[in-house]
């Protein structure tokens, strides 16, 4: 069985994955996406299984698709990345499956985006349909802020930045939750606290801090249900504590975990490697 880790740069997470594989006697080859040359009309399968850890969403999509065409098992599969990585698709799929999720609208023009904001009521949250680390995720407190945002996007944005995604603002208690789902198990969760540095954003890549979040039955059930919408795999399910209970606002398909192993005490990289290797054998 030939297995490999696919990455853009060797992040601390990726080093932990390599080390976890070594400890378990699992040989893991390395594919750096910048060095890939993909012969689309006649490539050869080199690996039976590839653990997808590219930093780039574009490279994640194309390498996953390419490798699957060659008969390689990719974890997570292309279809997962395609659906999870597009917030427009993900929100619609979560809602359809009955997963509690904030009320959300999509629109293509400033006029319809303004109608959506009126329906939601200010403040509203506007996000790019593709994006991570909460980049360009803005809380818009009033009509003037919305108009400024829309004008900027119309003047400077590319086509996908003009797909307007507006979401109900959840008055969260200065924190949100990331739950780690591997296969059919919720292996741990962290609270992500907003800080002076991160502002209202909680992302740890933006200065938010992490602490352990107990995996309650409710949290585990919602995390597994949300992950299940996209198919069995490895996920970071982001949720907020609303007045009506937990709501899922994002499901991460190539989840980062560097700040989560210590607070949770969960061997997230070890469990990821074990899951990946066992699925690749099937």
């Amino acid at each position, binding site marked *: 069985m030939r297995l490999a880790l696919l*990455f*853009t*740069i*060797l*992040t601390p997470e*990726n*080093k932990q994955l*390599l080390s976890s594989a070594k400890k378990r006697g699992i040989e893991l080859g*390395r594919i*750096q996406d*910048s060095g890939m040359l993909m012969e689309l009309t006649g490539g050869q399968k080199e690996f039976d299984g590839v653990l997808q850890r590219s*930093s*780039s*969403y*574009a490279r994640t999509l194309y390498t996953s698709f390419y490798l699957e065409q060659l008969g390689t098992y990719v974890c997570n599969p292309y279809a997962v990345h395609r659906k999870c990585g597009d917030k427009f698709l993900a929100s619609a799929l979560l809602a359809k499956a009955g997963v509690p999720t904030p009320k959300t609208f999509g629109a293509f023009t400033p006029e319809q985006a303004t109608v959506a904001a009126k329906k939601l009521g200010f403040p509203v949250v506007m996000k790019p349909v*593709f*994006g*991570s*680390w909460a*980049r360009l995720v803005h809380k818009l407190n009033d009509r003037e802020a919305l108009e400024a945002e829309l004008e900027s996007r119309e003047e400077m944005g590319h086509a996908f930045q003009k797909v307007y995604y507006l979401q109900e603002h959840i008055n969260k208690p200065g924190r949100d939750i990331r739950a780690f789902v591997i296969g059919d198990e919720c292996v741990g969760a962290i609270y992500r606290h907003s800080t002076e540095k991160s502002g209202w954003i909680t992302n740890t*890549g933006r200065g938010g801090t992490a602490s352990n979040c107990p995996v309650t039955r409710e949290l585990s059930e919602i995390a597994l249900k949300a992950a299940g919408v996209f198919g069995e795999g490895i996920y*970071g399910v982001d949720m907020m504590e609303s007045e009506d209970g937990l709501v899922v606002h994002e499901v*991460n*398909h*190539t*989840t*980062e975990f560097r700040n989560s192993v210590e607070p949770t005490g969960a061997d997230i990289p070890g469990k990821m490697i074990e899951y990946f290797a066992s699925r690749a054998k099937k």
Partner: protein
Amino acid sequence: MSGTECPECGAGISQREGVDVGEIIACPDCGTKLEVKSLQPFAIDKAPSVEEDWGE
């Protein structure tokens, strides 16, 4: 352990133990982020910029 030079400022960069290909290190003099390209011989280059679609 061998060494090389920072492509930005020319400062000497020594090969840390445990460092691996694809890892990002910082130049101790100018702070430029550098990607380890090979271990034997030890070679580095400027790290790729973080793109709009990076991260999770």
